[in-house]
């Protein structure tokens, strides 16, 4: 067997996908050929590195729900989001421009008519429920690589951020979207199996309502409930922080304090943010 022939089978040899005769022939060649032996080792090394270190992107819960809807709904009832369709059919932009204008007018009216914080928190609760379903029973990972990956995807500084402690552990962190803003999203689980999702996003344009403030030590975040979940909203370090939790009104302050205190910059000389 010559090198060119052997190299063609190296990947299959490492995966045990060669027949007995070919395995013997390739192994025989590799034993006497330093170059092919190095290539065989490279194949194994790179494969092991890729499997161990390349991040796996998980489909967002909203996409999961959309695809599930597509598969399970009868053909006549399938609906695709219009913005998605528009992105995939850019040549039709002219045709839908008029509809777009109407939609913008409608969206403007809708945004004035509704409470933006209510819409944001409703959406956040739905996202939280989706994340919980997704990460349930997932083992506790090492937070460092997760945060490193997130850092490369988010274009605003979100650290320092609560990375978990013996009572509450960080299960996952990912990029999300809330009210048209890209978010750094963190999902935590406590010892009782209850989940808390923290959304961080640039604070510009987000107004924390003055009413319904909860006094937690010296902090006063806005508190509300939605669909049985506790929500806390506050601003700190130019960011808006939205915490959605399975914990009730008596328990959520402790979680808030973990998140809030971990978010302080390390230097004592920096001014503290608003709460």
């Amino acid at each position, binding site marked *: 067997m010559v090198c060119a022939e052997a190299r063609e089978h190296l990947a299959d040899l490492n995966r045990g996908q060669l027949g007995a005769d070919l395995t013997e022939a390739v192994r025989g060649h590799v034993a006497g050929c330093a170059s092919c032996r190095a290539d065989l080792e*490279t194949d194994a090394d790179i494969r092991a590195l890729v499997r161990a*270190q390349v991040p796996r992107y998980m489909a967002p819960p909203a996409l999961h729900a959309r695809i599930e809807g597509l598969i399970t709904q009868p053909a006549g009832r399938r609906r695709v989001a219009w913005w998605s369709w528009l992105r995939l059919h850019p040549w039709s932009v002219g045709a839908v421009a008029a509809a777009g204008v109407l939609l913008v007018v409608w969206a403007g009216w809708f945004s004035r008519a509704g409470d933006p914080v209510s819409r944001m928190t409703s959406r956040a609760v739905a996202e939280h429920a989706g994340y919980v379903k997704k990460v349930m029973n997932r083992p506790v990972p090492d937070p460092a690589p997760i945060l490193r990956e997130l850092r490369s995807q988010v274009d605003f500084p979100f650290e320092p951020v609560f990375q978990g402690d013996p009572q509450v552990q960080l299960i996952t962190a990912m990029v999300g979207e809330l009210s048209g803003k890209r978010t750094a999203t963190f999902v935590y689980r406590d010892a009782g199996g209850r989940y808390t999702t923290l959304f961080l996003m640039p604070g510009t344009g987000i107004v924390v309502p003055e009413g319904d403030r909860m006094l937690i030590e010296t902090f006063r975040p806005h508190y509300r409930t939605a669909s049985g979940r506790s929500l806390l909203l506050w601003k700190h370090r130019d960011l808006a922080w939205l915490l959605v939790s399975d914990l009730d009104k008596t328990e959520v302050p402790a979680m808030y304090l973990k998140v809030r205190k971990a978010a302080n910059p390390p230097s004592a000389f920096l001014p503290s943010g608003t709460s």
Partner: protein
Amino acid sequence: MNDAKTPLPAEALSHLDALYNLARWLARDPTEAEDLVQETYLRAIRAAHQFQPGTNLRAWLFQILRNTFFTLYKRKGREPEVMDPEVLDRMSGVHGPTGVEHRLAGPPDGTAGLDLTAALKRLPEAYRSVVLLADVEDFSMGEIARIMDCPVGTVKSRLFRARAILKQLLRDYRR
């Protein structure tokens, strides 16, 4: 038979994360990746009558995803990057000195993950996809050939060359 009479097997949903993962590597943007996956499922639903039960549903969906990616990119007037073979040879060092070299190893703190990700992003799409399909998704060479619509020999040679390029790019992490 049309798509209304032939539903897509429910098992198709279980491949969503894997499809989204490849879509992220192809499209490089979360929103575009979501669109790509959604369009993939729509096309799969429309073509469900062409799928033969008992054959490889996962490979079939990946094939649709990749074809959809190229169709959409052409439609948008964008082409996936194509790299000059000579540049590839220089990157992989296939014409350079050969022989026994140090084996690769990542540092224990996981920083090689970032470096490896960056290195993978530098690979031409056809090479990157072969690596991801072979190593992350565990497809066989034959399945990858079907997904990428090329001969098995081409898949093997792309994988071999991709390994060599990655090794070069990751040389800082050699012991």
